């Protein structure tokens, strides 16, 4: 066979493989949405779950997932951006920098179940908080800190080239430069990273089973306490999220309509992931436009 025809065949094979992977993704998402479509209604998404009869909803878990996401972001973003600033602007190449990099690598490759067990040990047992939202939020903070630090470091490095000398030259201190010039420029890129990791936080389950727990109480929205056991906004109540619920419904098999519930909950999860991904894309495109002035 001539090398020309070999080249043609290889090209065709690569096209087919790529198409297959895209097809796999489309059918995967399509299947989940199709299967769950009958459950995508108000009663299912906002209704209360039932423990051993059919017809329950996912309301509390849906709320829990969002609330946990918000608390986690409140913890993760300041820490990750701070560490990113340190790595990009203040740390000098050398020992400390190397150790931090090694730690980031370590944290990013930790199995999420190990992070969950660390959370069980420290945030659930030692702190005596029990299975609680705050324990879960702290565990996922650990899980996502490394990626957010990386994203912010890269964003800050990219934003600081060029403008830094100008700002310092005008008499600003380094921190003023970072706070007033670099950070606003880097913000959209950081935001894209935050939204993408929000998708991951929303779907995380392994680190949550032993920290936030796999049960939820009936939520009382009329109480606005962060501590009270019955308040929906309490940081110290067991908080079963949507992803954990899918896992539990499957492994316990108590519900007669477990399949329907799992299908519906999966569809809701996938929809949320799609929304997170597309909004990250749109913001990313906006930044590109505002930086380059192109359409």
């Amino acid at each position, binding site marked *: 066979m001539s090398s020309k025809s070999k080249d043609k065949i290889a090209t065709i094979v690569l*096209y087919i493989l790529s198409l297959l992977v895209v097809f796999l993704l489309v059918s995967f998402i399509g299947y989940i949405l199709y299967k769950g479509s009958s459950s995508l209604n108000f009663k299912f998404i906002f209704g209360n779950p039932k423990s051993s009869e059919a017809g329950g909803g996912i309301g509390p878990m849906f709320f829990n997932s969002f609330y946990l996401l918000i608390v986690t972001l409140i913890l993760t973003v300041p820490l990750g951006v701070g560490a990113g600033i340190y790595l990009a602007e203040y740390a000098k190449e050398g020992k400390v920098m190397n150790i931090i990099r090694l*730690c980031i*690598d370590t944290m990013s490759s*930790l*199995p*999420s179940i190990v992070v969950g067990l660390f959370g069980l040990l420290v945030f659930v047992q030692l702190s005596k908080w029990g299975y609680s939202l705050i324990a879960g939020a702290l565990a996922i903070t650990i899980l996502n800190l490394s990626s957010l630090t990386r994203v912010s470091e890269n964003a800050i490095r990219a934003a600081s080239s060029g403008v830094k000398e100008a700002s310092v030259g005008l008499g600003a201190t380094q921190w003023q430069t970072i706070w007033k010039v670099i950070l606003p420029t880097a913000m959209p890129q950081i935001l894209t990273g935050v939204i*993408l990791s929000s998708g991951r936080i929303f779907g995380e389950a392994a680190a949550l*089973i032993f920290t936030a727990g796999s049960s939820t109480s009936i939520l009382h929205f009329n109480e606005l306490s962060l501590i009270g056991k019955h308040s929906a906004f309490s940081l110290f109540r067991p908080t079963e999220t949507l992803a954990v619920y899918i896992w539990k419904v*499957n492994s316990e098999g108590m519900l007669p309509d477990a399949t329907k519930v799992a299908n519906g909950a999966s569809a809701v999860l996938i929809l949320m992931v799609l929304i997170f991904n597309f909004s990250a*894309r749109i913001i990313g495109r906006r930044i590109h436009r505002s930086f380059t002035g192109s359409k």
Partner: protein
Amino acid sequence: MNKRSLASRIKNEYIGKAYATICGLFIIFLTLSIIFFIASKGLSTFIKDGHSIYSFIFSGTWKIDDMGVNSKFGPLIFITGSTIIAIGAVIISTPLGIALAIFMNMISPKLGEKILQPSMELFVGIPSVVYGWIGISVLVPVIKSLFGGIGISALAGIIVLSVMILPTITSIASDAIKTIPKDYIEASYGLGATRWQTIIRVIIPAAKSGISTGVVLGLARAFGESLAVQMVIGNSISFPKGILGTTSTLTSYLTMNMGDSVFGTPNNDALWSMALLLLVISFIFILIIRVIGKRGEVK
């Protein structure tokens, strides 16, 4: 004057600098405390309960006795299960990931950027419980009808994981291909090589260390994944009887049993030892990646 400038320096520089530095150092603190806490729990199997480290790694007898006095902790079953499933997934994903990376960079950068790249991001974004759920509700019945048996099997775990680690391998291989100097490629075309010859003889050898990093990271992710695998492999405490047999992995066993076990008992300590083992394995992967990276630089 001097005083005011000190005050303003504190306000304008030192507070911010201190905050950023604390955040940076906090990462070190966190990592060390994870290692410390998991190790202090995990080592008590050997220190307090008197089991030997050797048998913990090489023995395959796992017997849980209610009180934990006569329990035998040889997690070789779980180590084997994790290894088979992770390696199986990497064997499927690596060629596919490299093929996609080549397609994205060499064949059609436009389709790569517009379609494949976003697809990979979506694959990463899909939660692992959803992968597990599709594994149970679609993949397991398919395996059952194709190969017989019960469908729940090591093979199901391998296939689910291979989809989950595909984006890792693809994106890192693609980054590696992107950094290859254009001169290499143009020189190869200039010598009359076809695109395919250039891919095989120039691109893949030049991107070798990047591709290996991707494979090791994929392996690490496969080892650490718990729920998706746990949902489809059956969780029997036995070595898999062939690829269609059921088995357990380190992570799946931990997921199934940590909730019911009482803190401080030997049985519970053994679970923490398994968590420690997972931690050590992920360190080994990081070390391998660093070695590969160093080698790549020297070249």
